C-alpha cells in the first residue's frame, strides 16, 4: 500500500494487534471499505498466532514488532510512523472488531469542525453513566474519570477508549514520554500541556473473539501504574514549556 497522495488531510488509520487472528482481517476490510481515502497500518505487536498470515493480501501496511511491547508502545510506534510520514491525523482502532469503522467519518468531521487536538470516541459521554459495565471496571472508570477531572480540570467519561483521532500537533508530545496504555495518563498529560481533548459519542460491539489485554493481576497493577503516571504526567507537563496557543 502506498502512502496517500491525498487531498486536504492525510489520515492514517492504525490498528494495534496482538493475537487477533480471528478478527483482524475483517477489521482491516471494514476499514478499507469505510475509509478508502485513508492509509491503513497494522502494528503487529509480536503476535504468536496467525495474525501476520491473516494480513497477507489485505492491503494493510504492517509494522511488525519482533516481540510484544504492549498496547501503549504499539500506539506509540504508529504515532512515530505517522509523524515521520507526515500525516495530519492518526485514527486508532481496536483490532478485536468492537469499533465500527463506519463511525470514524463522523468522528473525523467533528475533529475538523471543532478543531480538537485529540478526539476520543466515547461510550459514555451521552448517558454519562457506566451502564452495563461490570462492577469492578465501573469503579475503575469512575475513579479514572475523577482523577482526570482533578488533575486536568475537566471530566473525560471514557478514558480507556481505543478509538481516538489524534492530531499531528500532538505527535511530538506523544512520542517524547512513556505512556502505559495511552489512556488517562496520556489524556491528563496532553490536557496539562494545553491541548484540546474532546469526546464524541460512539457505540461499540461486544468482543466475540480473543481475550482482553487485562489479566487478573493487571486489575491491581494497572490502576496503580496509571495513577502514578497521571501524577507524574502533571509534573512533567508543568516542567515542559506550554505550546503557544
Amino acid at each position: 500500500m502506498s502512502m496517500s497522495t491525498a487531498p486536504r488531510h492525510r489520515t492514517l488509520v492504525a490498528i494495534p494487534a496482538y493475537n487477533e487472528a480471528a478478527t483482524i482481517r475483517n477489521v482491516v476490510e471494514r476499514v478499507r471499505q469505510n475509509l478508502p481515502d485513508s492509509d491503513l497500518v497494522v502494528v503487529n505487536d509480536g503476535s504468536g498466532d496467525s495474525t501476520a498470515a491473516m494480513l497477507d493480501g489485505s492491503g494493510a501496511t504492517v509494522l511488525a514488532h519482533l516481540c510484544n511491547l504492549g498496547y501503549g508502545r504499539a500506539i506509540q510506534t504508529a504515532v512515530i510512523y505517522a509523524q515521520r510520514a507526515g500525516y495530519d491525523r492518526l485514527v486508532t482502532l481496536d483490532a478485536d472488531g468492537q469499533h465500527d469503522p463506519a463511525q470514524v467519518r463522523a468522528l473525523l468531521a467533528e475533529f475538523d469542525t471543532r478543531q480538537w487536538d485529540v478526539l476520543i470516541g466515547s461510550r459514555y459521554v451521552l448517558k454519562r453513566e457506566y451502564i452495563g459495565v461490570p462492577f469492578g471496571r465501573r469503579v475503575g472508570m469512575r475513579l479514572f474519570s475523577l482523577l482526570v477531572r482533578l488533575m486536568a480540570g475537566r471530566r473525560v467519561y471514557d478514558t480507556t477508549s481505543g478509538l481516538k483521532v489524534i492530531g499531528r500537533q500532538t505527535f511530538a508530545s506523544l512520542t517524547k514520554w512513556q505512556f502505559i496504555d495511552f489512556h488517562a495518563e496520556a489524556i491528563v498529560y496532553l490536557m496539562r500541556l494545553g491541548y484540546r481533548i474532546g469526546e464524541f459519542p460512539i457505540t461499540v460491539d461486544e468482543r466475540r473473539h480473543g481475550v482482553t489485554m487485562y489479566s487478573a493481576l493487571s486489575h491491581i497493577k494497572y490502576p496503580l501504574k496509571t495513577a502514578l503516571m497521571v501524577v507524574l504526567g502533571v509534573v512533567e507537563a508543568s516542567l515542559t514549556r506550554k505550546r503557544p496557543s
Partner: protein
Amino acid sequence: MTAVGLVAVTAFCVALLLWVVYLIRQDRLYAGYGVIFVVGTIALMVLLDVPPLLRAVTAASVVLLPVPSLTLIALVALTLLVVYVFIQISVLSNRVMRLTQELAIRNPDYHNVETGPSGPR
C-alpha cells in the same frame, strides 16, 4: 522506634520517593517497577507515623526482639541495590523497545490486495 530513628527513616523514605520519581521521569525506571517502590515507601511512612498501626504490625509479625540498627543499614543497602538492578533492567528494556519500534517503522511490510506481502519499498 526512637524519635531520631523515626526522622532518619522518614528522611530516607522521602529521598527514595523523590529519586524514584526522578528516575521514572527520566525514563530510566519503568513505571511498573517504580510503583512498587512508591507504594512500599508510602506504606512504610504511614506505618511509622501511626504508632498503633506499627505496634499491631509488630505484634502480628511476632517480632520478639528489637531490630539491631545494623540490620536496618543492611535493609537500606538492599533497597538501594534493588533500585539499581531495576534501573539496569529498565535501561536495557528501553533499548530493546526503541530498537523494536525502529525496526518495525523502518521495515514496513506492504501487503498488496492482489499479490500479498511485497516487502519494504
